[in-house]
């Protein structure tokens, strides 16, 4: 904190010296004092200028010069502050990406950072430099120079070329993220994440590797996600408290929301996609580092991956998080085996299924009965 305050040129240090300082009156008085101070300075300047005038020197204080100096000063301090920000605050940002596509994004990030920093520095040197050099002087006349088409063309084309690079690279990166060809030998693991105010539910697909259908009309207190158990793929689905994923395997996130729009945000993996009611949104990524590896790399035993909500969704928006653990393939298998299935005895009853029947039942007449039940249910819910 002191570093932050010390290196910044202006801005009072935060102080906490008890109740007095919190009172409105205290700050009001300080403010009045400052105003008084400023008005005294103002008076003094006025008196000074008047006295100068009285002595016949028509020019009082040369404000043009002062402002020009301030610009020069601002340039130097500003460039230093930029450097300071990049090194100090820049060191506090997210660690390098822990996913395959994230590495590409990071490359893009670095290129953009370098290009924009160059532009930023050059233009500011010119802007403040010109302001300093060409300050007003009664002896000089400005240079009448209304246009020059060659220069104009240069500074249209050069940025256009730079942007072409950015556009092309950005486009390729974007395409590689959202247009993935499925590798039949390395099928992604499906994980469904459902958001609601203000929590997340995670559903693993179970043995069949497919998360089953949902229908919001089936939502009840015992079936909070509205899973449609008439869909055979749903019956072995498992619930989980945290997201555990194996390293190096592609993960396909299937996102959905129950109430309002939320955003599934997992920045260490450079993943973000909104969860939209009534719609499925899909993001695929491959983690490249386990939590343990990250802890060692960052030398921080408390490090953990997280996902949380990034779209305004109500009063609890600021606290909608879940842990993510990236583990080895074998740990993942062990963990998965321990997760409970969604389908429990209550739900079986609700869906008119035999209690404790062997999970993947055969398609056949039972489905018919089930769908009839669903229909009844829907009607009941629709009132």
């Amino acid at each position: 904190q002191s570093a932050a305050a010390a290196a910044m040129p202006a801005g009072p240090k935060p102080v906490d010296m008890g109740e007095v300082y919190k009172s409105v009156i205290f700050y009001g008085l300080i403010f009045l004092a400052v105003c008084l101070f400023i008005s005294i300075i103002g008076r003094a300047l006025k008196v000074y200028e008047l006295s100068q005038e009285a002595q016949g020197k028509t020019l009082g204080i040369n404000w043009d010069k002062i402002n020009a100096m301030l610009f020069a000063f601002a340039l130097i301090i500003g460039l230093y502050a930029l450097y300071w920000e990049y090194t100090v605050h820049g060191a506090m940002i997210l660690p390098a990406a822990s996913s395959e596509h994230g590495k590409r994004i990071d490359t893009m990030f670095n290129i953009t950072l370098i290009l924009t920093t160059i532009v930023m520095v050059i233009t500011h040197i010119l802007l403040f430099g010109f302001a300093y050099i060409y300050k007003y002087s009664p002896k000089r006349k400005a240079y009448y120079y209304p246009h020059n088409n060659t220069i104009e063309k240069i500074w249209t084309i050069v940025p256009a070329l730079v942007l072409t690079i950015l556009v092309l690279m950005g486009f390729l990166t974007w395409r590689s993220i959202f247009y993935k060809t499925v590798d039949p030998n390395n099928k992604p693991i499906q994980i469904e994440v459902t958001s609601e105010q203000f929590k997340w539910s995670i559903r693993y697909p179970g043995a069949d590797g497919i998360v089953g259908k949902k229908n919001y009309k089936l939502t009840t207190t015992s079936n909070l996600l509205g899973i449609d158990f008439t869909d055979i793929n749903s019956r072995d689905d498992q619930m989980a408290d945290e997201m555990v994923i194996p390293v190096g395997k592609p993960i396909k996130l299937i996102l959905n929301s129950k109430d309002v729009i939320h955003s599934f945000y997992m920045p260490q993996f450079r993943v973000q996609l909104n969860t939209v009611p009534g719609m499925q949104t899909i993001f695929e990524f491959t983690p490249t580092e386990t939590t343990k590896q990250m802890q060692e790399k960052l030398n921080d035993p408390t490090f953990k991956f997280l996902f949380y909500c990034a779209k305004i969704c109500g009063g609890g928006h600021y606290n909608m998080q879940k842990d993510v653990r990236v583990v080895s393939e074998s740990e993942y298998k062990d963990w998965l085996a321990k997760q409970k299935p969604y389908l429990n005895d209550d739900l079986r009853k609700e869906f008119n299924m035999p209690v404790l029947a062997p999970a993947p039942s055969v398609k056949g007449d039972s489905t018919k009965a089930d769908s009839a039940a669903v229909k009844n249910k829907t009607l009941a819910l629709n009132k």
Partner: protein
Amino acid sequence: MDHKMIAKQFLITGIIMAVIAMFLSILFRIQLAWPDKSFPFLETFLGKWAEGGRIKSDFYLALVTIHGTIMVFFVLTAGLSGTFSNLLIPLQIGARDMASPFLNMLSYWFFFTACSIMMASFFIQTGPASAGWTVYPPLSALPQAIPGSGLGMTMWLISMVLFVASSLMGGINYVSTILNMRTKGMDLWKMPLTIWAFFLTAILGILSFPVLVAGVVLLIFDRSFGTSFYLSDIVMGTTILPNEGGSPILWQHLFWFLGHPEVYIVIMPAMGIASEVMAVNSRKPIFGYHAMVYSLIGITVLSFLVWGHHMFVTGMNPLLGGVFMVTTLIIAVPSAVKTFNWLATLWRGNIRFTPAMLFAIGLVSFFISGGLTGIWLGNASLDITLHDTYFVVAHFHLVMGSAAIFGMLAGVYHWFPKMFGRMMNPKLGYLHFWLTFVAAYLVFFPLHFLGLDGVPRRYYAFTEFEFMKKWLTVNVFVTWSAIVAALAQVAFLFNFFYSIFRGKIATQNPWEANTLEWTAPVEHLHGNWPGEIPTVYRWPYDYSKPGDEGDFIPQTVPFSQTMSSNLPHDFEGNPEAERIQLEWEAANPVIVDKV
């Protein structure tokens, strides 16, 4: 009520709204800096919304929402466009008043009503709208989702419809006036850049605001009548809502189809003002006048093609994401042209640092910094991590909360003598500029790094996440800087209101500028000019023309009176005039020693 009066009304209402919105930002900044302390004065101000001196989390969002709404719409759209278009369009093109003074007055009163309704929503039971200034449904559509989506949201929507009506009436009036009521000689290529900017801004408004109305009407029906335009498959807790078939993404399309042009609606007048102020105070013609106009036109057209860059990760088709990324990044080209032309205008100028000039230079600086972060966001793959983080907050505060505001302040300092017949105190102006300039950078620059660390925006407190705790000290620093910035505005407010009554009496052309408004008398007349409206002979940027002994030649001076400074280029397409000029030059060879 003539246009000058309406301009003043817009300005003063805008300033009041700006002060309110600034105050709201300080309130929520306090919450962000000291999330676990209680401040009794908050309870004094906010009553039940801050029981025990701590702002409630729902109400935090209300503060942010109203702060954003007021700043974008009421301060920068109405306050900036409304003030300066009204003041300058008739004066700078040489018209007696707007095309329809009545519509103009109506426009102000609609705006006033919109402001009143927005402010009134603070005093209702469920509080003001709190779904963010973009009011995405379903959050904004369902009163169950957040208290602010009750009556408060209805008032927000009504206020918005009135506001749009006001902007449309204004914009339509501006366009018609500019196209039909220019004085003799004022062809399009002799208009000052301010007028070009207001003109294109108004067109932008006419073409994009109606779409917002369409969107808002559908949202009102979803909220109040139970239709399903934006709603589908919603379960609140365990209550199943009957709506089916709509899509919330469609609201986002309709909203951003306005919302993106809107951000250029707020920056373009500021750019126009900055161009004019920079030319006057550098005592130099604006560099590349035509290029400046074409880049404005380019921005106008492009701004309709990029709305999807706010939706890269909302579940929009990734194909469109690619398209929008390309169009978004192209906008940097006309912006680059503008930036470099401003720099070239300063080059070898003879710069007078009036407060207006300082703010114009500040605008360029902020526009570059903020625009460059726009390039990051425009890159769809980077936006995956940056979307809805503080990086976005930093971006738009630099480019809108600072650059556009600075344009507005530059305009106020520059045209204050025209509005009130008195001068503002320049020294307080310097103080105001330097404090605001430094403090605004200190407020908004560090926020980029919060965003790069994955800190989302619209978070009530950063206490629930371990990794965010390291930013707490930065937040304290930012809040203090914001308080300094806000206090710096006191210098402005004092200066403004004091100078209205007690400032130094202004001369007719205090900045020695060329444009037409400075040929009108200082005291306001109905109809602007006592006799005939002056005729215009030249472009507005003949500053420091070689061969002329002064350093400015107003637009109303005919070429026949400035033979020594005329350039061959001035006579293109007028052989008769060229012949006379050549004859004169042959007769006076000494004076004709031009660069």
